[in-house]
């Protein structure tokens, strides 16, 4: 039985190999690699996209969490995969940083961008009984080193978000040192327990703690106010200096994907990201939608790469 099946499989494979053009993509399951752990924001958004994309393409989409190394392992896996459209991946902000900090040569040029679907600005939080932004920066200036900030690892987007606030206001980044942590949850716990004074992270990540009355947002490093938090001023409104730092997520494939496969995927993703179900999901979880098609996504990453490189150099983390 097994043997017969394998023979049949071998025959089918030979036929397929002989005439790949006749095969209608997709004709089998697609793997979607998520470079972050199950349960996080990237995983949650990746899974909803997989569920909706499955309906569009009519083939199962398997979500695979390839975690570790601050996302490097999963990102590497996506770029190494066969560019046949059967391995896709969610790529995230960190991709713009690896080659600048020198931990991995990976960059956006190793991927075929398909669609950007999410971007959330970093925001600055203090304890609910903490100072406002002017008092906070005055304290940093008056007593360099006394205010500690956290949010995620060293040289991540959260770190940049905070360092940018300091640099654009003519304060040296080491006046309010960055305490590396494993992520926003750990940092918010440090803030609530009184061990540090500032946390930089995105609004959806801190939402429960804000609602709990434990912490409050001061400013958001965005070009305009965020719809879900209309009371929080942008960095420019509060301080007069332009500064924006967005954490983003998008779908990409390995480089040199065939054009016909790319067409099928970009069309399907367009329908998925603009669907009511997706919009409703993102709204409920307070994630911002920033949809850009393949070309728009490519341009976005080119810009992000350059500006993040500049910011990393300013903080002294670029190699």
């Amino acid at each position, binding site marked *: 039985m097994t043997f017969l099946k394998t023979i049949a499989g071998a025959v089918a494979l030979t036929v397929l190999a002989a005439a790949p053009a006749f095969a209608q993509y997709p004709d089998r399951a697609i793997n979607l690699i998520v470079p972050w752990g199950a349960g996080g924001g990237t995983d949650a958004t990746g899974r909803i996209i997989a569920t909706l994309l499955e309906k569009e393409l009519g083939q199962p989409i398997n979500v695979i969490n390839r975690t570790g190394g601050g996302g490097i392992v999963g990102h590497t896996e996506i770029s190494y995969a066969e560019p046949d459209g059967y391995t896709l991946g969610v790529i995230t902000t960190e991709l713009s940083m690896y080659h600048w900090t020198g931990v991995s040569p990976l960059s956006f040029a190793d991927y075929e961008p398909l669609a950007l679907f999410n971007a959330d600005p970093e925001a600055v939080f203090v304890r609910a009984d903490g100072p406002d932004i002017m008092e906070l920066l005055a304290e940093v200036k008056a007593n360099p080193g006394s205010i500690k900030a956290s949010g995620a690892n060293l040289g991540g987007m959260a770190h940049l978000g905070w360092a940018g606030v300091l640099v654009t206001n003519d304060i040296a980044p080491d006046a309010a*040192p960055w305490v590396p942590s494993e992520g926003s949850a750990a940092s918010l716990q440090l803030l609530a327990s009184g061990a540090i004074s500032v946390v930089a992270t995105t609004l959806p990540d801190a939402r429960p703690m804000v609602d709990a009355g434990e912490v409050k947002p001061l400013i958001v490093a965005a070009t305009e106010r965020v719809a879900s938090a209309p009371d929080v001023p942008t960095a420019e409104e509060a301080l007069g200096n332009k500064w924006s730092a967005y954490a983003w997520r998008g779908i990409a494939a390995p480089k040199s994907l065939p054009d016909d496969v790319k067409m099928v995927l970009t069309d399907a993703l367009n329908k998925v990201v603009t669907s009511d179900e997706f919009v409703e999901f993102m709204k409920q979880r307070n994630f911002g939608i920033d949809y850009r098609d393949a070309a728009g996504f490519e341009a976005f990453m080119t810009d992000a790469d350059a500006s993040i490189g500049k910011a990393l150099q300013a903080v002294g983390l670029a190699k």
Partner: protein
Amino acid sequence: MSKSLPFDSILGVVFALFGAAIVQQSTGLQPLAGMIVGPGLFPTIVGSAMAVFGAVLAVQGWVTRTNQPENAPKLLTWFAAGVVVAIIAVILVMPYLGFLVSGTLFAALIVLISGGNWLSALIFSPIASTAIFYMFTSALRVPLPHGIFG
């Protein structure tokens, strides 16, 4: 292992050397800008502790060598070696042959070296690997390798 040198002492020396190697490797790990504690600190602590405990184990093994049980079970058996070789073979072969084929061969081999007869190996192996294959790929959605028979 020779009678005069107890196995605990050998193991202790191996650990001590390995610990020293960890410490040596960690010296290259320097703190990043703005960090007080570097990534090399903990490996250095662990490596040193391993070296110290390894040395103590080596001495302890030597001191208590007369107390060693003489009839310790034989460590290296044909069966244990067979299991290791079979797993290595699966690692090498599965990406090409896929899970169904290599899993069946593997199961049959294990049944045989475990003392099972040919008939049970022939009946059991394809059924077990097919059941596991479909349970994982269909019900649990773990994409197992299809291989060239895909």
